[in-house]
């Protein structure tokens, strides 16, 4: 599902309240529930919830704290999930800090920490799927019961697309070993690791702004305001929709598509082939909604 908010006060950048309206509408649509509380409860059951950000580029183009705060507000509606059951996390504390997050490794309040926090680190057991053998962040293996994957949408000079599947490279100890062949099949295999597959409950890709070329580093000249988020319980579909948006923006900006650019995104089809989700656009049930300033959802038409 794609949720857009065309009336944003500042184009391409949402406030916490605007993100709350967007997420609320999306969760209701996704769950089929009419109340926010029921929508949240149905989508994310009670437990300790991880929120995996993408803060590679620090303050420039990372998962916005406003999005995380808005999601946390919703998850804690009616005390469904307690504040200290929320774990905002990333590879390193440095990345989180540079992206504007306030670290909190204590058990009071919303936790926010990197895997490099003292006493956290990576597990000692290897998990293997296909071409990937690795150790996972102990935040993923030991701390959280479920995870919400919250990347930003951007081009990636090796992977082609950096969305949800690629963001889970931040959960493993040796991501540098899995960039060959445009991250295929590795990006799919990382998300098929048992812990990641079983705990990843929801993917929310922030596409308020999209970097359609030159990623994963930040290049402001390739930023476009898309003005929405992608939300799905299917990690492959979420990325597939992200890829559609990315390719459209590349086309609008007279750039070759990713295949022509030599970095065709093959790992999505592999993700479908191994049962991780759906990559075929004709099989994806896509809903696009527009949210107005009152939080009311309207049919959003085309992607």
């Amino acid at each position, binding site marked *: 599902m794609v949720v857009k908010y065309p009336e944003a006060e500042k184009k391409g950048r949402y406030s916490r309240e605007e993100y709350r309206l967007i997420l609320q509408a999306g969760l209701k649509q996704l769950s089929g529930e009419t109340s926010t509380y029921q929508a949240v409860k149905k989508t994310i059951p009670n437990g300790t919830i991880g929120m995996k950000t993408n803060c*590679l*580029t620090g303050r420039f183009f990372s998962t916005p704290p406003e999005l995380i705060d808005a999601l946390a507000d919703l998850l804690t509606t009616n005390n469904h999930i307690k504040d200290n059951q929320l774990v905002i996390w990333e590879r*390193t504390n440095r990345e989180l800090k540079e992206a504007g997050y306030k670290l909190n490794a204590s058990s009071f309040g919303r936790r926010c920490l990197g895997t*490099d926090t003292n006493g956290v*680190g*990576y597990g000692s057991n*290897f998990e*293997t799927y296909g071409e990937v*053998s690795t150790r996972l962040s102990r935040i993923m293996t030991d701390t959280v019961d479920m995870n919400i994957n919250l990347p930003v949408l951007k081009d*990636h*000079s*090796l992977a082609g697309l950096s969305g949800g599947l690629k963001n889970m490279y931040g959960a493993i*100890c*040796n991501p*540098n*070993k899995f*960039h*060959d062949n445009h991250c295929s099949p590795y990006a799919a295999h990382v998300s098929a690791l048992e812990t990641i597959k079983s705990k990843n409950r929801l993917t929310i890709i922030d596409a308020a702004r999209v970097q359609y070329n*030159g*990623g*994963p*580093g*930040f*290049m402001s000249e390739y930023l476009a305001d898309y003005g929405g988020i992608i939300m799905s319980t299917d990690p492959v579909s979420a990325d597939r929709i992200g890829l559609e948006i990315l390719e459209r923006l590349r086309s609008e900006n007279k750039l070759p598509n990713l295949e022509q650019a030599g970095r065709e995104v093959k790992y999505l089809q592999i993700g479908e082939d191994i049962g991780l989700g759906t990559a075929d656009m004709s099989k994806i049930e896509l809903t696009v909604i527009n949210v107005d300033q009152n939080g009311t959802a309207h049919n959003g038409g085309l992607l």
Partner: protein
Amino acid sequence: MKRRTFIRCLGCGAALAVAPGGELLPEFLGGVQNAVAFDYAQNLSSVEARYYKKLEGGGIECELCPRHCFITDLERGYCGVRENRKDTYYTLVYGLPCSVNIDPIEKKPFFHFYPGTEAFSLATAGCNVNCKFCQNWEISQTRPEQTKNIELPPKAVVDNCRERKVPSIAYTYSEPIIFYEYMYDIAKLAHESSIKSVMITGGYIEKEPLKDLLTQLDAVKVDLKAMREDYYKNIVHGELKPVLDALVQIKNSGVWLEIVYLVVPTLNDTDSEFVDLARWVKTNLGADIPVHFSRFYPQYLLKNLPPTPTQTLERAYQISRAEGLQFVYLGNLPGHPAESTYCPDCGELLIERRGYRINKYNLDGNRCHKCNREIPGIF
């Protein structure tokens, strides 16, 4: 350098700071004299890397190893320790070893390079391959922010060696190629103090950096992991051909060379592979290059295999000797007669070893004390 947690000893014998895996080994600390402590480093280094080129349209291409990683802004190479920041390439591990020990040179193993001496041995995190059998995967298959590193700039390494009267520095444990700049600078400085440098490597390096590096090294031990490309592709995640090329380049440079072949049951232990190895070494490097067949123990991603049977290693030994190799050894088999050095002409026992210990030494200079045959190496 801050001094807190890095323990060193000024007495002879051994000193240990941080072991593979990055932990202090408390059992070592008993009996340490004049212990001095160092802080763990808080940050990674940002020294510009050598051997890379900036690409038109952005990104860089690493030219250190045959992998030739294409790396965009904020990404790292396959090794995990070299990072592109705005199209300048940096080594993140310069002066930041995560493992420092003083080892017998036999542990490397070098059997024909100053036998019975010690080597100040160090490694940083990272590796440019990913062997499924890696014995030091805790440091080689991680990124430097995941290991406990200490600040030990080249001068401190050399000073330590001088103080302890350690004659050699060994770049070892992980893959020294990936900390090339650090290794090169230490070796260069060490030579000014007549301290030798030895590299223990998989040999997966490009010609130009190897050529430059060999001007600073005194000996190289190469892990030749197999004689089959498919093994390199599937088990090592590398390539055989560049390693063979590097072996020839090292031999031709005049730097002392020894080879280790880790025999992994069912994967690289056939007669034909041992024959191919022996013939290739004899033809391309010479019959007098020491070749060590080493016993595999289940580790890392190959825990499903048993340790190499002694008979397999003995078969490798017999085949290699029959093919004409003159100095063949078996490793990780303490007490086996094939740990020792014999004169190829008269059969006299020249150096008797048990594990890393030398029990008898019957060399006269670099010659057999009985028949006067010259024994290759640096003694």
